[in-house]
């Protein structure tokens, strides 16, 4: 068990090192996030709706697309250098590979969200500091859901011809239920309403995470085995 975790950390560390040395993918997604926020600002009629009403939606649509883009690159590196075969030959379990990739992807997406969140608060004049802790919790829960399924799917789509198109098509239906729960909880938070009002959305989000992390963990070997 501890071997699995140790190997997972080694794999995650490799991804993180490679990425943070070149920084290209992370920077691109961060810039993309800012641009999406801009699109939302100019895409709405400023006289019609107050920013605070749209804020939860804007935040979560932005994060959904940013997560998607980040996940697109998840297995790109291995593919480019045919390193995946090497990884599979190494004395590292398949589950370590999944956990390592999951961890690395979570950190990547977290970095992008950490950039996007203050900018969102700035652009749309939303005061987040009073609710920062519970909001961070909601973001963490939803992100785990996105990334657990996304890591699994990117292993499959990476080797198909239209990977960048196929991953969103496969992944978005799985991102929508967490999105719904996250938006409901965020809206309640920002409006100062108690979280219990969201009708168990957070519990469902937690259940979703447990189910899909476990499922992806057990299904991952099928995506890399012969």
């Amino acid at each position, binding site marked *: 068990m501890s071997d699995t975790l140790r190997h997972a950390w080694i794999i995650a560390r490799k991804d993180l090192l490679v990425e943070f040395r070149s920084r290209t993918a992370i920077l691109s997604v961060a810039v993309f996030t800012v641009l999406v926020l801009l699109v939302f600002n100019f895409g709405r009629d400023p006289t019609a709706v107050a920013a605070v009403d749209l804020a939860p939606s804007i935040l979560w649509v932005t994060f959904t697309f940013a997560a998607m883009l980040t996940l697109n690159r998840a297995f790109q590196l291995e593919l480019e250098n045919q390193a995946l075969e090497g990884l599979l030959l190494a004395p590292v379990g398949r589950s370590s590979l999944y956990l390592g990739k999951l961890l690395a992807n979570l950190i990547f997406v977290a970095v992008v969200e950490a950039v996007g969140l203050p900018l969102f608060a700035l652009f749309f004049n939303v005061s987040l500091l009073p609710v920062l802790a519970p909001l961070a919790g909601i973001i963490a829960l939803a992100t785990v859901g996105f990334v657990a*399924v996304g890591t*699994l*799917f990117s292993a*499959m*789509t990476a*080797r*198909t*011809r*239209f990977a960048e198109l*196929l991953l969103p*098509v*496969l992944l*978005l*239906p*799985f991102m*929508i*239920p967490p999105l*719904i*729960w996250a938006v*409901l909880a965020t809206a309640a938070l920002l409006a100062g309403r108690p979280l219990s009002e969201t*009708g*168990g*959305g957070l519990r*469902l989000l937690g*259940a*979703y995470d447990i*189910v*899909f992390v476990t*499922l*992806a963990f057990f*299904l991952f070997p*099928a*995506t890399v*085995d*012969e």
Partner: protein
Amino acid sequence: MKLLRAGRWITAVGFVLLAGVYLRALAFTPVERSQGLAQKIFYLHVPAAIWAETAMVLVGLASVFYLFLKDPRLDRFAEASAEVGTVFAAIVLTTGPIWGKPIWGTWWSWDARLTFTLFLFLLYAGYLLLRGAVADPGARRRYAAVLGICGMCLVPFIHFSVYLFRTLHPMPIVLKPSAPSLPGSMLATWLFSLSVFTLLYVAFVMQRYALGLLREPPAEGGGLHA
């Protein structure tokens, strides 16, 4: 081949019986007072919805068994059920708005059942697109099985999120679309329709399965699978 011939015959029988359903529903079933003739759409819409969802569950189950047993027949069945399920989902998504317009006043109201079926349709589309994008047959079966299982596990979460979303955003409902219990004559028509849709599902799957067999290169595994 025998499966194909049988499938074609059963399809023919199914269509004759469908004509019988049409006749019975249109001419020999009482008109529902509050909704008028449009209510009769129910006799086609609901059986189609039942099979659109059941077909997805069957894809999921076949996928689970495929990953354990590695039997290509299970994969062929999953492929067939997915395609036929898509057809039934299309029926739900077209008859639904046609029914909704006179009853609710709008073509689309994000009604929980229709939204759920739209999700199903998108899951089916993703499944079929993934199958089309993977060249290697072994990988295709494994990936499709992974996606099929994830799709089946997503279904309860879609229910919870879509229905939750719905109850917090009540739609103006002019008339309740389905009565809690059907009087005898209507129930008989509905059951008749459900059995014909069942027959058509089976017949279509038989033919589609046969098509899957025909498409495979003859050298695979030898012998007769049917």
